[in-house]
């Protein structure tokens, strides 16, 4: 993705322009991040309208609180992704809790498992989108096109060693999607905006 190469300067400028109340900056922000935000929200909530709602909430939050972003802590892109994730997971949990309260089926444990699964899935999407293109290309060959690692090496014009290395490293990155917390306890539990 071209947007991965956005220099930090762009992030800082964007923050200043948003803080200044420049509507054109909001449009540019949307153009850059809307598909990321909507995609992540959709992955967590599996619902088009709910993802639209989260998209609205995320951009409203950034527009109203641009000063919350700290360029020292990393790219704007990851801040926006984190915010999206938090809002989407919170909404999934709220919807599930409300359903439980109405006497719907399932248990609190099942809900937490569902939230964790959805949360990890969204993280994984983000990781795949953000990982270096060579790793993503190798995973794509091996997983989606069902090529073995030797074919993957041939396809990509790399050694078999390198193909094995990329597949392993790609999966290692992906495995961080589960977060370090014990299974079933989402890392962003209780996170408030």
């Amino acid at each position, binding site marked *: 993705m071209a947007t991965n190469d956005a220099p930090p300067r762009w992030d800082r400028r964007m923050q200043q322009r948003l803080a200044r*109340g*420049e509507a054109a900056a909001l449009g540019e922000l949307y153009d850059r991040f809307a598909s990321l935000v909507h995609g992540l929200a959709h992955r967590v909530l599996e619902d088009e309208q709910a993802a*639209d709602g989260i998209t609205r909430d995320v951009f*409203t939050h950034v527009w109203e609180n641009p000063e919350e972003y700290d360029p020292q802590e990393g790219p704007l892109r990851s801040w926006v992704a984190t915010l999206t994730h938090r809002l989407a997971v919170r909404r999934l949990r709220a919807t599930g809790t409300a359903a439980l309260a109405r006497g719907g089926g399932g248990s609190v444990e099942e809900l937490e498992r569902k939230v964790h699964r959805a949360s990890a899935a969204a993280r994984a999407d983000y990781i795949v989108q953000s990982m270096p293109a060579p790793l993503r290309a190798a995973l794509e060959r091996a997983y989606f096109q069902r090529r*073995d690692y030797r074919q993957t090496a041939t396809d990509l014009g790399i050694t078999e060693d390198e193909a094995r290395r990329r597949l392993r490293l*790609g999966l290692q990155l992906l495995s961080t999607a589960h977060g370090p917390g014990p299974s079933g306890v989402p890392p962003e539990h209780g996170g408030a905006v």
Partner: protein
Amino acid sequence: MSGGAERFEEFGRYERRDADGGDGGDGTGGTEAGGPQDGWESTQATDRPRSLGGPGGPSSPGGSGGSGSGGGEGPVPPPRIPLPRVSVEDGGLPLPEMKPGPLVLEHRVLKALLGAWALAACSAEETAAVEEHLGGCGPCADEALRLREAVGLLHAEESLDLDPALRTRVLEGCLDRRAPRIPVPEWAVPYDAETARLDALLQDIGEADWHAPVLLRWFRGEGPVDRRTTVAGVIAHLLTVDALVALALGLDDPLEVTADRPTPEARTEAYWRASRFPPSRGVRGPWREQSHGLVRMVSFTGGAGELPVSYGDFELPLRDALLDRAFETWIHAEDIAEAVDYPYPPPAPRHLHRMIDLGARMLPTALAGRRRAGLAAPPRQARHLVPAGSPGRSLCLEIEGLGGGEWFIPLDSPAAVGSAELTVAHVALDGVEFCRLAAGHVSPEEAAVGQDGDREAIRDVLFAAASLSRM
């Protein structure tokens, strides 16, 4: 590995994150030589991953007949050439099993295979060897489990066709909550929306689509003309013509050569001629940067809607020029969408309405121009010219559908004012059809038009509408 919890991270420095010590490379394949200096894993052994030997086979370099699958983490002794076989019988060791043994690989080799194994991307022998190893090696078993779980997270990227209307809804919702100190002028909003819509289409199309042929069509004088180009050529065209607005605002001109004339067509031809290679997807960035820059610039000079923008042969005030660019962006986006077989709906009704309004306002001047060129009937009231600003003989243009409305077009002079009382003809057509007519994509003879009244006036107005089109 840690750090996934607090925030979503970028992976620009991923190699440092690898607990096993990455090779520090950029992952783009600098390891073709596969030599041990790469450091990710010593790769010596993997050069011959299929060196079949039974457990404790006598070909082990040390000749000691070790466990075979043991955790050989230490450096491999330098002599890689197997020592001459000592006769088993002579060595007094137990005879190896004679059946074809399973593949035996070193720990480091097996570990390097875990990713491929988790993805079911290695050979049957390798799979069996890895699985055999997992039974006896805790760290590898842990990693294998982790990587297998990670595979479960892989997910085909869904094609995300974001509803373009969502952009407008989201932005408006934001601006309601916190009023902008520097708003985008209302007349620039259609351009902002149409460029965003086209950019979303460009985001979706594949590499090859950029070279798909596109036939640009417009109308000149008596009939249609066309010009062949590609999808990328169309974006180059938009870039060079949008730049007319940029120039009026004092921004840079992306056209680095001088065009014969400062008209949209001449500038486009000059740009195409000047590029050493046919335009490719690389033109998207400059085009998008310029369109964002224009929206930003007009926001800061919000009061300058009357600033004249020159098209070479004529001028439009900035507010209309940007509306014209919105219209052209949509029309050419449709050309592109057709070429790459994508659906592309018309603009939002209120934006469409503004575009139609611009066309209707430009009609009297276009009509007068055609009359001067002998392409339209002379005015009926030539003897007693209508004083400027007073009502004149008119045609009622009724546009149906979303974004439609009713316009009275003065027929005899651009200075006259359209009048319901002095209406001599009435035409009715759909808004999108009117726009296609004004874009030269539908001919005046073929446009689906309901008509009533003065036939000559109707014909002249429909041809004048078509003549609004340019490359």
